[in-house]
C-alpha cells in the first residue's frame, strides 16, 4: 500500500479533527445524563412574567409579550441556537458558555475552515454509488491527489458509504435537524449532543476532501498551520 504525502496529510488532519470531542467527552463525562425536558414547571420564570405584566397599559398587550408559553418557547429557542451555534463546536461556546456546564471543546478551532468549506460545497457534492469495501477506507483515503479528483474514489465516499448514497445529502440534513429538534426539548443536552458528532464529522471530512481536491497548495499550507494549532488543544484535553 503506497500512501502519498497528500493522502497522509489528509488522514492526519481528519484524525486530529475528529478525535478531540470523543477524548474530551471521555475525560469529562460525569455519568449524568438527564432526560428532563424544558417543559418542567418553572416557578422563577412565571414570577418574572407576573412582575412584568403590570408594566403594560392593558392586559391584551401584556399577554402578547408576557405569557407562560413564552417561557418554554424561550428555552426551546435558546437550546436550538446553542445547538446550531458554530462556536459551540469549535470554541466551546466562547464567548458566552452555558453557566454550570462543562462546555467542552469538540473540534479543533481551525477545523471551522473545513466545516465552512464543507457546508458551502454541500450542495455541489455529486456522489456516485460507493465501490465495495475491498481495499479499506484508508487505502482509498491515501491514494493521492490525483485519485482524489475522481468523484468515485473521493475520501468522503469511502468514509461514509451508504450515508452519501443517492439522496444522502438530505438524509444528513434531516438527521441533523431531527437530532437538534429532539435535543432542543431537553433541559440539559450537554453529553447527548455527541449525537451530532457524526453529521458534523461528515461535513468536516467533506471540507477536507474538497479543499484538498480544489486548492491543494492552500490545503497543504493550511493543514500545517492546523496541525500546529491543534496539538495544543489535544494536549490540553489531558490536563486537568
Amino acid at each position, binding site marked *: 500500500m503506497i500512501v502519498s504525502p497528500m493522502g497522509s496529510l489528509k488522514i492526519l488532519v481528519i484524525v486530529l479533527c475528529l478525535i478531540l470531542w470523543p477524548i474530551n467527552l471521555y475525560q469529562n463525562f460525569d455519568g449524568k445524563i438527564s432526560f428532563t425536558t424544558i417543559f418542567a414547571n418553572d416557578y422563577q420564570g412565571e414570577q418574572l412574567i407576573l412582575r412584568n405584566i403590570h*408594566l403594560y397599559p392593558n392586559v391584551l398587550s401584556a399577554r402578547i409579550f408576557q405569557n407562560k408559553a413564552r417561557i418554554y418557547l424561550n428555552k426551546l429557542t435558546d437550546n436550538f*441556537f446553542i445547538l446550531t451555534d458554530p*462556536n459551540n463546536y469549535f470554541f466551546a461556546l466562547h*464567548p458566552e458558555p452555558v453557566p454550570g456546564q462543562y462546555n467542552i471543546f469538540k473540534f479543533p478551532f481551525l477545523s471551522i475552515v473545513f466545516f465552512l468549506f464543507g457546508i458551502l460545497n454541500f450542495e455541489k457534492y455529486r456522489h456516485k454509488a460507493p465501490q465495495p469495501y475491498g481495499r479499506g477506507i484508508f487505502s482509498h483515503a491515501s491514494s493521492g491527489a490525483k485519485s482524489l479528483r475522481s468523484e468515485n474514489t473521493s475520501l468522503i465516499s469511502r468514509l461514509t458509504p451508504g450515508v452519501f448514497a443517492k439522496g444522502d445529502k438530505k438524509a444528513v440534513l434531516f438527521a441533523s435537524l431531527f437530532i437538534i429538534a429532539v435535543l432542543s426539548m431537553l433541559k440539559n443536552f450537554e453529553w447527548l449532543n455527541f449525537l451530532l458528532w457524526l453529521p458534523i464529522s461528515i461535513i468536516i471530512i467533506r471540507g477536507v476532501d474538497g479543499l484538498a481536491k480544489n486548492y491543494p497548495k492552500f490545503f497543504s499550507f493550511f493543514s500545517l498551520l492546523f496541525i500546529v*494549532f491543534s496539538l*495544543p488543544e489535544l*494536549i*490540553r484535553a489531558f*490536563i486537568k
Partner: protein
Amino acid sequence: MKKYATYLFLALIIAIGIATRFYKLGEAPAGLYVDEAGQGYSAYSILKTGKDEFEKSFPIVFRSLTDFKTPVYIYLVTPLIPFFGLSAFTVRFPSFLFSILTIPVLFFITQHLSKNVSLAIIGSLLLAISPWHILFGRTNFECNVALFFYLLGVLSFYLGLKNPKLFILSAVSFAIAIPSYHSQRIVTPLTLMVLFIRYKDLIFDKTRKKYIFAGIILGALILLPTLSVATTPGFLARAAGLNIFSHIRQMPDGFIASYHGILNPVINGSWFLSTREFLSLYFSYFSPRYMFFLGDYGARSSFPELSTFFLWQFPFYIYGLFLLFKKKNLGNLKFFIVLMLLISPIPAAVTRDPYTTIRALPLVVPQILIVSLGIFEFINSLKNRTGYLLIAPASVLIISYSLAKLYSSVIILNEYHRAKAWDFGWQEVVQKIQTLDQKLPIVVDNARADAYPQIAFYLKYDPGKFQSENFEVKPEEYYTNLNRVKDKHIGNITTRPIFWKEDLTKEQYLIGDELAISIQQIEVNHLTLISEVLYPDRSVAYRIVKTNPLSGSAK
C-alpha cells in the same frame, strides 16, 4: 416600480424610522449615562469657553474620564445647545439625526449596486425597524454618526465611478468617519484599501485621476489633526486597554493558571490562546445565537427581551446567506455585502467583550441586506396569485408585531429593568441639591462610579468656574499624561469617596447610592435622611443625608 411610488415608499420608511427613534427621545432611556453627560458637558464647555473642562482648546480627542472620546459627536452637540438647551434630548439628537439619514443612504447604495428597487426598499425598511440600529439612534453613541459618514463615503465612491467629482465627497466622508468612532480607525482604511485594489483601473484613469488626488489631499487635510495625535498614549488609550492581545489586565481566555510544566509555552502560549480567542469572538458576530437570541450582553447596548434582530428574520437570514453564495448575478452588491461582512467585526473581535454591538455596528448593514435578500427571493418564489395576495397582510402583520415588540422592550421593559444601567436618578438628585442649604458642603460618593459629569451637566455649571476649580493636567500634557484626579469640585459640591470617620465630624450633606449610604449607616451614625431617589422598581437609587456631628456619631 414607478419612480414616485419608490420615493413614496422611501418617505414612508423614513417616517417609520423617525417614529421609532424620535418617540420619547431624551426621555427613554430615562437616565443619562455618565458618558452621555460627559460628552454633553464637554460640548457645553466648548460652547462657553472654547475649551473643554480640562482647559484644552478645541481638543482632537476629548480626555473626559481619561478614556479619550472621539471628537466629532461632541462638536455636533455644541451648536445644538443654544437651540435645545443642555439636555438629554440635545446630546442624543445627533445620534437620532444621523441614524435617520442612514436609511436613505442605505437605500441608494442597495439600489445603485443591485439595480433592484424592491430589494433597496426591503433593506431600508428593515433598517428603519432594526432594534440594533434603533438603540444607537435613541442614545448618545458616536458609532451611529460614524456609520452614516462611512456609508456616505461608500455611496459617493460608487457614484464617483460615473461622476468623478463625487470622489471628493467620498474622501471627505471617509475622513470624517475615521475620527468619528474608534472602530472606524480599522474599518474605513481596510474598506478603502479593498475598494482601491478592486477598482484601481477605473479610479486611476485619466478622467478620474485629478478628482481622486483632490479627494486624497482634502481627506488628508481633514485627518491631519487626528494624525498629529495618533501616536499619543491618549489616542491609543482605548485600544491598549481593551484589546485581547494585551495581557496586562487579564490573561487570555483558556489560560490554565495551575499548569507550570514544560509544555507551558505550547498549551498556554498566547500565540495559540489569543488566536483562538480572536476567532471565537469574530465568528460570534455571524452566529444566529447572538443575532436572534442573546444579543449584546451590555445593559445599555441592548433592550430587554429583544436581540439585535427579530426572531422572525432568522429563516430569511439563512436563506439569504445561501443565496449570497449561490447567486451569481448579484454583482457589486455581493462584493459590498461580503466586504462589510468580513471587515465590520474585526474591531469588535480584537476587544475582549463578547458580541459588542457598538463596536460592530457597521455589521448591521450587510446582515440586514442578507435578510432582505432572503425576503426578496422568498416573495419572488411565490408563483401563484394567492401567495402574492397574502404578502401585503403578512407584511403589515409582521411590521406591526415588530413595532409592538419594540415598544414593549424599548419603552416599557427597558425603563423598568435597565434604569440603573442608564444612571437614572441624577437629574432628581441635582434638583434636590438645589433645595439644600448652600452654605454647607456636599460630598457625592464616587467610590464605584463617577458622578461629576451628571452633576455639572444638570446644574449647567459654569465651565469657566469648573476649569478654575479643577486641575488634572497641564494643557501640553493633555494627550500624554494619563494620570487622573478623581476628586472633582463643583462649587460647594465635591465628588469623592465618603470617609466616614472624617466626614462625620463636620456638618455637611452626603450623597451616595444604597451601598454607600445604607439604612444601618444612617441609624448607627445618627444621620438625617433628607431624601431618597428611587428607581422605577421602587428600589433606592440614591440617598441624601445630613451629618449631625454634635450627636456623638463621630466618636
